[in-house]
């Protein structure tokens, strides 16, 4: 397996050199800052969304009321004791508290009282009466809560295809895929041009056939990209889990698997594309222009994927999710959103694999031919024709 030996050596060199580079360290740090910052922002915003009910009471059964209102809503209750009903009324006219309870049988409704709060409080006061009577019978407060709500199971009814959380995660996945494939694709591009412009490629090609060099490069940089992507996903996953109480959509293992799978498929294709592009130019300045078509296709895929954010599964998205090379960014969005049928996924994967193999075959030859042609831009035809074999 001499071919594996050279592919492996090239891949390890790429991996080590890139991992040690400032560019990789900065980009990893930057991505982590963005992800952690995003989670922190979501947590802060989520905290603001928490509802607070202000309740004032005069000789009211405080524990029972607070427990019952909190149980009946997702809000937190701030309870204030007032000495007299008059003081309570006055405070309510100023808006705080929003509602008042006098004794164990009177609810005061004010300008800030919402219908929901009124209903909750009325029910709570009624229940608290029950609570008082229960305590008199020797039951604890916990027993009462158990009696009031513990026996009832609440189930949320959701439609998987229209789940905002899932769409959000799918969209985040599309961003991650787009950014990762583009970033690491650019690294391939820069690496190939660097090898070509520094002429080291002649020395390397003396020992390693061009297809092995290409494969090693894609594998090495791809592995590094995958490692960075997984790091981001795992931190995102852990972060989202720990912030779950504020209602951030859960990034589940299935989504991670889908993103990882499509990263591998998409990267294999685009990395080859970027490598071929790099082999056709002689200077870094030309590389960005030459890679424009590839970047355009990726950007288009991303924008189409973005249309899924509202949970709709539109026709353009459905079609492009099957077509290489749009599928690596569009299909995972549909898949994570639960919109893609199994046969659609199968077709999409098969077409993408076929397209990648075809690109490797044709592109590998263009790459071989392009690498040794220096001085300006080489046309695809010229590179393909001049490819040396043996």
């Amino acid at each position, binding site marked *: 397996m001499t071919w594996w030996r050279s592919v492996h050596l090239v891949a390890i060199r790429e991996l080590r*050199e890139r991992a040690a*580079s400032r560019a990789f360290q900065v980009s990893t740090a930057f991505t982590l800052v963005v992800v952690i910052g995003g989670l922190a922002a979501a947590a802060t915003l989520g905290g603001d969304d928490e509802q607070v009910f202000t309740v004032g009471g005069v000789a009211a059964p405080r524990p029972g009321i607070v427990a019952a209102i909190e149980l009946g809503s997702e809000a937190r209750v701030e309870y204030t004791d007032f000495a007299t009903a008059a003081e309570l009324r006055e405070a309510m006219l100023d808006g705080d508290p929003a509602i008042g309870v006098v004794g164990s049988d009177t609810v005061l409704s004010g300008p800030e009282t919402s219908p929901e709060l009124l209903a909750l409080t009325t029910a709570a006061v009624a229940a608290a009466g029950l609570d008082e009577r229960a305590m008199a019978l020797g039951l604890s407060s916990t027993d009462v809560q158990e009696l009031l709500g513990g026996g009832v199971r609440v189930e949320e009814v959701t439609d998987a295809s229209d789940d905002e959380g899932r769409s959000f995660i799918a969209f985040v996945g599309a961003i991650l895929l787009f950014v990762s494939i583009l970033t690491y694709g650019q690294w391939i591009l820069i690496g190939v041009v*660097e090898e070509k412009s520094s002429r080291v*490629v*002649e*020395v390397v090609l*003396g020992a390693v*056939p061009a297809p092995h060099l290409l494969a090693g490069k894609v594998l090495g940089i791809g592995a590094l990209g995958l490692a960075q992507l997984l790091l981001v996903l795992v931190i995102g996953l852990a972060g989202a889990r720990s912030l779950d109480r504020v209602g951030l959509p859960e990034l589940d293992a299935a989504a991670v698997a889908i993103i990882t799978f499509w990263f591998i498929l998409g990267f294999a294709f685009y990395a080859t594309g970027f490598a071929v592009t790099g082999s056709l130019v002689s200077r870094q300045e030309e590389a960005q222009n030459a890679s424009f078509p590839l970047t355009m296709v990726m950007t288009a895929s991303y924008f189409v994927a973005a249309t899924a954010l509202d949970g709709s599964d539109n026709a353009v998205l459905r079609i492009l999710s099957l077509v290489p090379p749009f599928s690596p960014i569009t299909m995972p969005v549909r898949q994570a959103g639960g919109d893609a049928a199994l046969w659609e996924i199968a077709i999409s994967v098969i077409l993408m694999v076929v397209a990648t193999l075809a690109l490797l075959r044709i592109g590998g030859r263009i790459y071989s031919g392009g690498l040794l042609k220096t001085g300006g831009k080489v046309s695809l035809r010229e590179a393909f024709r001049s490819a*040396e074999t043996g």
Partner: protein
Amino acid sequence: MLRFESISKRYGDIQALDGASFSVPRGALLGFLGPNGAGKTTAMRTVFGLVRPDAGSVTWGGAPITPAMRLDFGYMPEQRGLYPRMRIAKQLAFFGQLHGLAKQEATRAAHDWLERFGLSDRTGDRLEDLSHGNQQRVQLAAALVHQPALLVLDEPFSGLDPLGVASMTDVLRDQASGGTAVVFSSHQLDLVEDICDSVVVIHRGAIVLDGLVVELRTASPHRYVEIDADNPNRDWYESIDGVQLVDPGPPLTLRVPAHLDPKMVLASAVGDGDLRHFAFSPPSLSQVFREAVGQ
């Protein structure tokens, strides 16, 4: 033995190689000479599969060259280049491994070569941080690190100062005497004459001279006469059959037929005057070359 057998290669209107044939035996130090654009680089690149000849073949040990054979070859291309940002010891070890060395072996060889070139204290430096001369040394080490059986160097002397030339010469001689087949190209014919026993000269893609330097020179039908003497008769040489004035001097330089007796020439040149310098010698390599290509 490396053998080029009637290789031809055409780029558009340019016939880069035109049926060139020659061999590089193990243990030989062969100069591959020719003016710029003669086809030297193209021929060398065919050895590494970087150029595919339109016709003819390149063989090693009698068999067409395969990628596996190339692992045993070392190459220093005309356009120097290594990874600019990679640390030099790691870089050399990488090339050693690419050519089939085990990791430890490659690392040891890398350090050995850097030590030999006086770069022991720079092993952790990036290539781009070295001076031009040191980068050249690392480039040479990259071709040698795996102890190749065939060493191909494209213009290894270009850009070297006299000390660099001397140290490059030492390395190449060492390699050849160790049994490696060494071939290097150059367009500086006078320089190569001192280094190599045998040369191959290529012109417009075809081999025009091939053999021992000494034999190529003595096989020439001409001899060069250099004289610095006081002779009142300035036109003394015009009576010599087939004489040609090369340089009126001093010293006066003439080209004469090889069969002439040097003593006769000396006698007619000096007459009664003083003699300060006299030489009767076969043409230099570059003179042989100019004769061969008709310039």
